[in-house]
Every structure is written in C-alpha cells, then in structure tokens.
C-alpha cells in the first residue's frame, strides 16, 4: 500500500513545513444506560438485544437525557480546565446513514457543555506541552455495521451489510482540541502523549473504560502542514480509525510525510477523510463525497435545554479525584524514585498496582519489587499486560505480609503467587492446600539434620574438620527432605550446632 504513496523524508518535511494538528477524541461513557434511553451499554451483547423504541428510532419514540452522562460530561470538562456552559442545548446533526437509526445524530452544535480548557501533557523527556481544548460536548454513538461479501469484510466491495444497534445511543463525549501548533518534530509524539494523558485522566475520573481496542476511546487526527514560519494553516486531512496510542503517532507521522511529498511536488492537499491501516501504517483516502456535507443542525426540539446550576458544578468539582499527573508527582516523591525508575514503572503499567498494594498494607519497596520482577516476568511469559494477571494488589500484599511475618520464605512466597495465578484461591488457601508453611518446628528440623548427617558421615567429617562450606550439602539434603519448607538459614545454623556438639 504505502509503496504506492510518495513519502517525503521526515527531516525534510520539518525543514520546510510546520505541522498543525487537531485531535478529536470520542469517549464512550461507562454509564449503566444509554444517553437517551434506559437500555444497557454493555459491550459484546447478542446483536439487537440492547435496544428499545428510542434507540432503534421507532416512530413516536422520544429521548430523555441520562443525568449521569451530563454529570460525567461536566466532570470531564472540569478536569480539562474548561468553562461549563450555564445554558446549552442539544442539536440534531442531520445525515442519512444506515447505522444511525433516526438519520440524525443527537449531539451538541454551537452550545457545547464544556469549552475553552487545556491539558498539560508530559512528553518522554519530562517536558510539558500544553494542549488547548476547544470544547467537549455530549452526543450519542451509532450502531455497528458488518459488511458481508467482498474480500476484506470492509465496506468496499461488500454485497450487503448487517446492522446491530446495541451500540446506538451509547453516550459519547467528543473532546476537540484547538489547533496544536509549535510541536514541530515532536508533533507525532505530542499527539500520542495527548491521547495517552487524556486516557489516564478519563480512567482516573472513572467515567469510561477507555479501551481503544474495543472502541470506547477513538481518535481522529487532523493534520496539515504550513510553510515554516507561516501563520496560515494548510488544508487538513482527517484520519479516522486510529485505534491505539502507537497508531496515533504513526498516523500523524505518515500524514506529515505524505502531505510533505504532495506539497513539495507542487500538488495540493485535498480536504478529505482518510483511513489508517494498522498493518501498513499508512493512510488511504475515503470515498469522495459528491456534494459537500450540510448537516442542517438545529436545536433538538424533543429535549429541553441543560442549565447546570453553579452549585451543581462546584459540587462536581469537589468530586474530582487527584489528577493522574499530580498523583504521579506525589508517588514519585513518596516512593523516593528517580525519574528513570518512575518511567520504568509507568511503562510497565505498574504504578496503580503498586499503589494499590501499598494501600493494602505492603511497603512500597516490597510492592515495587514484586510487581516489577517476579510478576512482570509472569506477565511476559503469559504475553499479558501486568494488570491482566489474575492476581490482585490485595493478594500480593497478603503474600508480602506472610513473608514479613516469617510464615513464608521468598521461595515459598513465589509458589504461593503461582498458586493464586493458577486459580487456586486466596494466598492463605494456596499456602494451606500446597502445605507451603515454613517448617519452624525445631525438633523436627533437628531430627532431619541428624538424619542427613547420619546418611552422609563423610560430609559430617569434613565439617568437623573445619570445612564449613561443606555444610551446604547437608542443608540441601534437609531442604529436600522438608520439601523446601524449611528456613535454610536456620537449617545451616542447626547443622553447625549438631556437628560441633
């Protein structure tokens, strides 16, 4: 695919042009019910089982706003440092498309609930880049189409399509940035970092699942180039279907190179929608529309205006959690980590898990050690994210406690964790079932030591003769005899004691 497209060397693009970005992120809210009706929003249900007259667009059915969705929208707006509208309306965006049951989308037009905010984004090297937010508004999702026939399951070449309206009407918040200028060579990184920061923010607010893979967070990237040092934006393209953080970065970079090649070759950019292809990392033009779209927005007459009182807004401001970057700063300080150590934890996705483990009573050093060494290894072996491991921070904290109190050795503790990961239950259940407790019964240990010395008279002799390091063989034999459940250090002491007696 990309071989057919002329690309300009990235450094050459930057030598000639300044990139301008605009990012539109759609977030599906994790409310129990849809934006305008009482249907559930669960992902992955049987087709057309989460529908009612309203979200199916049946004649006569009417919408009623989900108050929780408005609350989430206001909280998102506040977290993005936005103004919250004193009065705003929903509007109808009119266009025909089969995935849209009413052939209009109930959205907001010139009266968004939140506007004029910003998000400070921390880049790889710790530098902060401020992204200005134009608006955040409420709307509804569409249904899902399945394209049948044709080679790829894609829309082109399909013989017909199948529609499932379970997703139709799921609450969406669309967050739109102001044009992002001045990012220069770091534009792709800024785009990625922005979406990443936004995702963390939304997760902290507990308003969305923010699963890019399931489409609960979707990003459209607008990219244009203007001659270096200029102030007139170039024609932009809008790239859709950018479904991972990595793709956001790649798509922006690709468009910059593609547009650079077009412009420097004397061509002009066509304002169009482009699709990002994950496998090739390239974008391709969508089908050109025969007429320019005219959405004929007008105020939604079936819904009354939303006028959040200032008291309500302030009350919601009080519910905002510690924001992710503030929390990160605090944690780094409390755990006494270097920037590099902190970045490693972030990259491993371990910060929240460690924090929760600390919350459950473990020391930060122990918690960190467990998550970034043994558990990270296990996750890598399984090819899973750390967070996807079937063990909870509370369980990890319990294992650490068992070690601290001397019930388990580190080796036994790893076996206890293995048991939890294997689905054998809580750490205490695994310890009991697998008989993992340290053998601390001194007389039993002494008996085992005597037996081992008796079975290895030559070794005993060596020890007596001053070759203390030979004790290792006896310790090993005792550990074997006790199935590893003895405290090796204590066994060693007992061996020396017995030989010298």
């Amino acid at each position, binding site marked *: 695919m990309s071989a057919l497209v002329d690309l300009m060397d990235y450094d050459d693009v930057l030598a000639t042009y300044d990139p301008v970005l605009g990012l539109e992120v759609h977030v599906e809210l994790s409310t129990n019910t849809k934006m305008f009706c009482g249907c559930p929003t669960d992902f992955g249900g049987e087709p057309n089982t989460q529908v009612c*007259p309203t979200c199916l667009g049946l*004649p006569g059915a009417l*919408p*009623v706003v989900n108050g929780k969705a408005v609350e989430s929208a206001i909280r998102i707006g506040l977290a993005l440092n936005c103004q919250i509208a004193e009065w705003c309306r929903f509007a109808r965006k*009119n266009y025909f498309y089969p995935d849209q049951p009413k*052939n209009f989308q109930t959205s907001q037009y010139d009266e968004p609930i939140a506007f004029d905010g910003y998000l400070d984004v921390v880049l790889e090297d710790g530098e902060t880049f401020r992204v200005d937010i134009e608006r955040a508004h409420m709307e509804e999702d569409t249904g899902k189409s399945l394209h049948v026939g044709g080679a790829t399951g894609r829309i082109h070449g399909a013989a017909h399509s199948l*529609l499932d309206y379970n997703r139709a009407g799921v609450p969406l918040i669309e967050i739109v940035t102001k044009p992002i200028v001045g990012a220069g060579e770091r534009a792709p990184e800024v785009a990625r970092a922005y979406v990443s920061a936004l995702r963390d923010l939304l997760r902290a607010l507990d308003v969305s699942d923010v699963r890019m893979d399931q489409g609960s967070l979707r990003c459209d990237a607008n990219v244009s180039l203007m001659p270096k040092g200029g102030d007139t934006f170039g024609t932009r393209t809008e790239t859709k279907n950018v479904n991972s953080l990595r793709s956001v970065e790649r798509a922006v970079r690709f468009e910059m190179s593609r547009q650079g090649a077009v412009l420097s070759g004397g061509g002009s950019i066509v304002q169009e929608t482009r699709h990002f292809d994950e496998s090739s990392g390239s974008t391709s033009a969508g089908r050109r529309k025969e007429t320019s779209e005219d959405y004929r927005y007008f105020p939604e007459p079936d819904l009354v205006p939303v006028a959040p009182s200032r008291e309500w807004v302030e009350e919601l401001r009080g519910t905002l959690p510690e924001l992710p970057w503030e929390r990160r700063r605090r944690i780094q300080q409390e755990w006494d980590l270097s920037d590099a150590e902190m970045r490693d934890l972030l990259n491993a996705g371990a910060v929240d898990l460690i924090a929760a483990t600390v919350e459950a009573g473990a020391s930060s050093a122990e918690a960190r050690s467990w998550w970034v060494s043994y558990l990270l290894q296990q996750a890598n072996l399984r090819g899973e994210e750390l967070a996807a491991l079937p063990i909870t921070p509370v369980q990890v904290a319990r294992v650490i406690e068992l070690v601290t109190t001397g019930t388990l050795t580190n080796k036994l503790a790893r076996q206890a964790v293995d048991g939890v990961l294997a689905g054998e239950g809580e750490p205490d259940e695994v310890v009991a079932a697998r008989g993992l407790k340290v053998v601390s019964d001194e007389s039993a240990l002494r008996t085992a030591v005597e037996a081992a010395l008796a079975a290895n008279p030559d070794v005993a002799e060596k020890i007596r003769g001053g070759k203390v390091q030979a004790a290792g063989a006896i310790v090993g034999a005792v550990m074997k005899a006790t199935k590893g459940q003895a405290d090796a250090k204590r066994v060693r002491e007992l061996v020396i004691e017995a030989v010298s007696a």
Partner: protein
Amino acid sequence: MSNPVSDEITRSTAAELAERIHRREVSAVEVTQAHLDRIAGVDPEINAFLHVDGTGALAAAEAVDAALASGEAPASPLAGVPLALKDILTTKGVPTTCGSRMLEGWLPPYDATVTRRLREAGVVVLGKTNMDEFAMGSSTENSAYGVTRNPWDRDRIPGGSGGGSSASLAAFEAPLAIGTDTGGSIRQPGAVTGTVGVKPTYGGVSRYGLVAFSSSLDQAGPCARTVLDAALLHEVIGGHDPLDSTSIDAPVPPVVAAARQGASGDLTGVRVGVVTQFAGEGYQPGVLRSFDAAVQLLAELGAEIVEVSCPHFDYAMGAYYLIAPSECSSNLARFDAMRYGLRVGDDGARLSAEEVMSLTREAGFGPEVKRRIMIGTHALSSGYYDAYYGQAQKVRTLIARDFAAAYEKVDVLVSPTTPTTAFRIGERVDDPLAMYLADLCTIPANLAGNAAMSVPSGLSDEDGLPVGLQVMAPAQADDRMYRVSAAFEVARDAAQGGPLIHRVPDLAVTA
C-alpha cells in the same frame, strides 16, 4: 336499516354512556358492539377508520364488564366507553400507518403513553382513524388510503389532518376520539364537522408514541361531541410522563370541574378578548356572522368582551410553514427502509442502501409530505438558516409575547376556528397555499404552546355547514377555555333548539 336501541346508544354522550355502564344498566360490550355495528354500517361511506379492531375492542369491553361485575370501582370515569384513535399514535400489535404507504402493515412493538393511559382507564379503543399523511394537511385528502367524507355533506372534506377522528364523532361511530394538533389538526376538523376539538397546552399530554410531525408543535388532545366529554377524556390522557422530556410536571388543570362550572351558564366577570387580526379578507361571511353571534351570546352570559390586537399573528403562517417543515424534514428521515416499513428497489445486489432509501422515500411519501420535507431541508440549509428557520423562531417569540400581552387584559381569546366551512373534496388539492389557509387562526396557539379549542358555534347561514368558535387560553390554564366553551355550549343549544350535532343528516346504513 337502523336499530333504535343501538341508535340510542351511539347518539349518547360519553358521560351518559359511562354512567349507564357503571350502573350496569348496559354493558360495555353492548355499547362497544353498537358502535362496531354502526361503523360496519356507515364507514364504507365515510371512511373514517383505517383499521377497526373489533376483537381487541370487545375484549377490552369484556374486561371492564368483568371488573364491574366483581364489584370493582370503574378504572376511570370513562371506563367502558368506546373511542376512535388517530392512526398516528402507536398501538402495540395493532397497525399504525399515519395515513402513509411508508408504514403500511407496520405493527408497533409498543403503546404510546396516550394509548396506555386509555387502556388503563378502561376506555375501549375501537380502531384507528384516517388522517392526512403524517398529519400534513387540512382535509385528509393527503391520506394514502382515500379521503374521509364529512358526514354533514359527503362531497366535502372533514378537515384535517384528523378528519377521521372528527368524522367518526359526527357519524356517531364513536362518542370520543383522539386527535393530534400541530397547526390546527384537532380544531379545524372539529369546526367543520360540528364537534368539539381540544389542543391542550403543549406538554400537557405526553407525546411519547405520537409519531412526530413537528416536535415543538405537536400536541395530542381529546375530540368529542360535548365539552364535558372532551374534559373527561382530557383528564384521562393528560398529566406528566417521564418518557417525554417536554411533558409538564404538574397536575392536569381541573378541566372537568371547569366544564361543569361553565355548564351553569354564567360567565360574569370573565374577560373575553376578540382578536382583531382574525377577520377580513379570506373569511367566509357566514362564518363571521356565526362568530359575531357567538360573541354576542358570550356577552349575554355575562362575559366582558374586549377587542385585542395581536399584530405578529400576521406572520404566524409564515413562521409555521418554516418551523414545521424544518422539524418534519428531520423527524421523517428515519423512514429509510432499513429497520421497518416499506422497502423499494432492494434487488439484493445492484442497488445500494442509498439508492434504496431514495427510491423507498420517493414511493412511500405522498406529494405534500415531499413538499414539506424539501421546504424544511431548504430552510435548515447553511446560508438559509438565519433568514428562514432562525427568523421564524424569532417571530415565534414575538407571537408568544403578543399572547402574553393579551392575557394581561383578558382571560381567554376567541376567534373563528377556521376561515371557511368545509370545502369540497378536490377543491384545494392543487393549491398548497389555499390549503394552508385553513389553519390561519389555529397556528398561533401552537407556536406559543398555549391551549386552544374549537366548539361548534352553529351553522353558516349560506351553506348550512358547521362553524367553529375557537377559544384560547394561556399555557396551563386549559380549564378557563373549558369553562367558557361549556357555558357557550349550553347557551347555544338553548338558542338553537337543541344540540347542533343532532342536525347531522341521517346516513344511509348499509346492512
């Protein structure tokens, strides 16, 4: 062939029937059967019904009788009384077409709130009545299923869009009916059929399940042969509905009490405003004479008559024919052949969804609906929005202000309901603007969201056809217009020698 017993039933008022059913002097089943027989006899001539649900009606009537027999109190003051439902309100499992080919054969999977409230009140739904397609029209000639004929003169229109509901009352096929009124679709048919039609305050009756024409104007309301019957029905269907965001969260104004109070015939201290804008060119002289006589009668009942000017009413028609088509162009977009209703041109391969949508909408909608969709599409287009839709909404504000100013001086406003008596079938079909004039006097109340009703004022002296008196009241003061209308009704009957409706010519009943 008419049957004296069932004639006696079908000519009774809803209040009378309810009383007799509740005293168990007659069963709800007998009353329902009498109306079903009447429909079978006269409807081939009138065509008021698109669908008669005899089985459902009799089952509902039986349930009422059984409850009464077991000693239960009636579910409502209208339990057991039959009703004709405009085919724009959804009925679960019963066809709902909106008078359009687009919805031929559609069985809704849910009941409108009005339908549900009727059922819960024990009101017996006889069937669904004819209407102009998607409620766009003033004559029912825009129905895809044939015109409804006016029982007063079968060569004339019964009004519209709710001509089927009003005609069913005037033909004694039902004592009660439900209509919907976007620009006059309850009141104008009421006027030209000599029946009572009420457009409640916007938000007073739930719109959930009312297939939307123009969402900010549509309002369902009661149709009846007497003011009291309309009030009884109003209280059954009215009140807050959490499924309609524009529903008013307040009790229904006490319309039944007001109707009873009005029936005492005393209007002392009531200030009645006559809107000066509603007269002059385009008004039939006989209509104006009937109106003047009605005002005279109100004065005789003790009302104080005041002339009121509402200058922006002159722009109401223009504003209406921008706002209603704009909203309709969006509301009717859902009829696209994808999920329900008609589908035309799907050959399984060649034609795209876009083409099938366009072919279906072309085939499924009649000319008036297409005209309005295109006007609305135009009025909302970028470049035209401010001059058309935006300006119309400002005019709407000015009209509401005219009303507010008037209601500072008077309690109710009156006017003729419609400028002429029933016109002849076919007379205006090729002239949309002439058709639109039928709603000249009714539109302002829709734009302002106020209450308004039509009560028969008499017969026009030049053609012997019914004329309606429109009585308007502020939002949430529906009771005021019921009081005035009920007082007027009593005085009119006294002055004209009995109920006007009894002067409907006999219809030949097909055996």
